[in-house]
C-alpha cells in the first residue's frame, strides 16, 4: 500500500499572505489532484496534474497556483489569502483517469485566515 502525506496539517495565515501547501505520494501514481472542501459542501477541484510538470486547471483555480516538479509531489499555493477564509484542502492521487478511477486522499490541510 501507499500513503498520501500532506503538510502542514494546520495552516494559519494573514490576509493577503501567500501560502504554500505540500503533498507527497508514494503510490507511484501518475495523476494528482488538489480539492477544496468547505464545511457542508462537496469537494471542488482546484488543479490536477497527469504527469510530472503537467498542470491542468479545475473549476476553482482562480487565486491558486500549483507545481508538479516531481512525480511524487504536488504543491498548491494560495496566492493571496482572503480574510476569514476557512477550508480544508485535500490532495489525492490515482493510477489512471479512465473508468473505475479510484482516488486516494490525504488527511487534508486545514486553512484559517485571520
Amino acid at each position: 500500500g501507499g500513503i498520501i502525506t500532506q503538510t502542514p496539517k494546520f495552516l494559519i495565515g494573514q490576509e493577503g499572505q501567500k501560502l504554500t501547501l505540500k503533498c507527497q505520494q508514494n503510490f507511484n501514481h501518475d495523476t494528482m489532484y488538489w480539492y477544496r472542501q468547505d464545511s457542508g459542501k462537496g469537494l471542488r477541484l482546484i488543479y490536477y496534474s497527469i504527469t510530472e510538470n503537467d498542470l491542468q486547471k479545475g473549476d476553482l483555480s482562480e487565486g491558486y497556483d500549483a507545481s508538479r516538479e516531481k512525480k511524487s509531489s504536488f504543491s498548491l499555493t494560495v496566492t493571496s489569502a482572503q480574510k476569514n477564509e476557512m477550508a480544508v484542502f485535500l490532495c489525492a492521487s490515482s493510477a489512471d483517469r479512465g473508468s473505475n478511477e479510484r482516488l486516494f486522499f490525504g488527511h487534508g490541510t486545514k486553512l484559517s485566515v485571520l
Partner: protein
Amino acid sequence: QQQVRQSPQSLTVWEGGTTVLTCSYEDSTFNYFPWYQQFPGEGPALLISILSVSDKKEDGRFTTFFNKREKKLSLHIIDSQPGDSATYFCAAKNTNTGKLTFGDGTVLTVKP
C-alpha cells in the same frame, strides 16, 4: 447549478437499521458513480462504485443502486453500525472528459 445533488444533508439511524442515501444528477454523459466515505479528520476513501451499464453493486453491507432513466442512484447500508458514522459523498464522472463531480455529502450518525 449543482450537477450532483445528495439527500438528505444529514441522517440519524439506530444501530441495526437500514440507511438509505440518495443522489441525483443532470448530465446524461456521466457514466461512473463512486461513493466516498469520510471520517472526521481524514480524507475521503472509496467505498463502492458502479458503472452506468449496471443497476446494482453489492459489497458486504453496502449496496449501490443505479437508475439510468431517472438519473438517480442510492446507497443502502444494512445492519448499520456506529462505526459507519461518517460523511458520505456520491460523485459522478464522465469517463470521456475525466471530470469527476462531487455532491455536497450526507452526514450519517448511527446511534447505539
